[in-house]
């Protein structure tokens, strides 16, 4: 999986042209519910809702989704195991109530991760970052983030090509060789990234750049029906989560 894989999926799914606000309401709204509500049944309901939005809704490719979620879930497993044990004066033992705490943590973290995954798989990162402009984030920082985004793919491609070239010359066949080769990639990548930055300066200056990166952004219309559906669902989960 390369750096651009998720972003590509985000640009190709069925909900690509839904308004940013709607997707943010879904992803961030349910994320807030997931971490604030008591995990049972709140987080479990959030997980269910998110799977619904992700698969039947946005038709995210499930194979890729599974491959991506594996890593955070691995971290979760390692972390949760630690809640099962306790350390005291008399050594290590099974923690009292550890199973329950670990289970609740897993429920919450999974629900929250599904929310993040929904955002990552339905909304290109540039759109998300661009949305920060509408919040309190200063324009310069948003521009910096967007330029970073643009450079990420270019530099990642270069790094991948360099690594492939080294593999072809067996640069990764021993551990010390691997370390040395990776260092060489990094050492070559930094000046190249800087040279690219300078060329981009020239390229944008030629287009009349005055110091501010203004572009026309397309805004997708908000569907009130979807907003209503999401709000009702969130209210229901909030209610169920606090009462049950």
């Amino acid at each position, binding site marked *: 999986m390369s*750096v*651009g894989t*998720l972003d590509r999926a985000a640009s190709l799914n069925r909900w690509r042209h839904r308004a940013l606000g709607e997707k943010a309401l879904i992803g*961030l709204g349910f*994320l807030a519910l*997931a*971490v604030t509500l008591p995990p049972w049944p709140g987080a479990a309901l959030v997980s269910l809702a998110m799977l619904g939005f992700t698969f039947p809704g946005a038709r995210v490719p499930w194979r890729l989704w599974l491959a*991506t979620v594996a*890593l955070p879930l691995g*971290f*979760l497993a*390692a*972390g949760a195991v*630690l809640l099962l*044990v*306790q*350390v005291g*004066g008399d050594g290590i033992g099974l923690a009292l109530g*550890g199973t329950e705490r670990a289970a609740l*943590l897993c429920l919450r*973290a999974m*629900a*929250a*991760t599904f929310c*993040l*995954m929904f*955002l*990552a798989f339905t909304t290109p*990162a540039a759109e998300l*970052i661009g949305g920060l402009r509408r919040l309190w984030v200063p324009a*310069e*920082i948003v*521009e*910096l*983030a967007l*330029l*970073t*985004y*643009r*450079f*990420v793919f270019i*530099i*990642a491609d270069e790094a991948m090509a360099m690594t492939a070239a080294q593999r072809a010359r067996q640069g990764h066949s021993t551990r010390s060789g*691997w*370390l040395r080769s990776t*260092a*060489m*990639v990094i*050492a070559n*990548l*930094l*000046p190249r*990234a*800087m040279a690219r*930055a300078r060329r*981009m*300066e020239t390229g*944008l200056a030629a287009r009349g*750049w005055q*110091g501010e990166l203004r572009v026309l952004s397309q805004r997708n219309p908000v569907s009130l029906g979807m907003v209503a559906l999401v709000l009702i669902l969130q209210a229901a989960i909030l209610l169920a989560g606090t009462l049950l």
Partner: protein
Amino acid sequence: MHIMEGFLPASHAIGWYAVSAPFVVAGAVRLRSVLRDKPEARMTLAAAGAFAFVLSALKIPSVTGSCSHPTGTGLGAIVFGPAVMSVLGVIVLLFQAVLMAHGGLTTLGANAFAMAIVGPWVAWGVWKLAGRMGLRFAVAVFLAASLGNLATYICTTLQLALAYPDPVSGFMGAAMKFGSIFALTQVPLAVAEGLLTVVVIEALSGKTRDSDRIAALAGEAR
């Protein structure tokens, strides 16, 4: 090492946002003034941010045989300075969350504190201190990068321990638990990162003739 989405309870998530905010805001204010004077520094900074991101996606072997990713914290702090790294670090963490599902949005505050604030400042402090003590260039780089990496790991461990204290031995016990699990991978990794950074800086200096040119690489971003 990122704390995953949803791993911290809401109160901790908000707390770490509050702790990180002043550092990031201060970095952002500084950055804005740099950008006002030199709009073209945007390109250099963006390239640096992208570089840091790509670095974190590269695999390096660790001594135990597992693979991991360099944090680039030390290298970034040495080349670009810690204040700028705090903002770049947050941008990088944000992209890691939305492009690779590493880390998360609710845990962004906590991860930023460990990786974009503690790590770079420790690395930078060690780098300056070592310079004042007259240590050899390579030794200074090694210490800065490996201790910066280690500081990030210790900070994350403490954050986890604070959120999930041991039922018997409390915070200290939890810190030991989380610490010992991650020490297996993270201590060798800190060493690997230190070595890596030394080789990188030496290769860079080889390309640019003298170590002063490291600063020149950063250009307007410094």
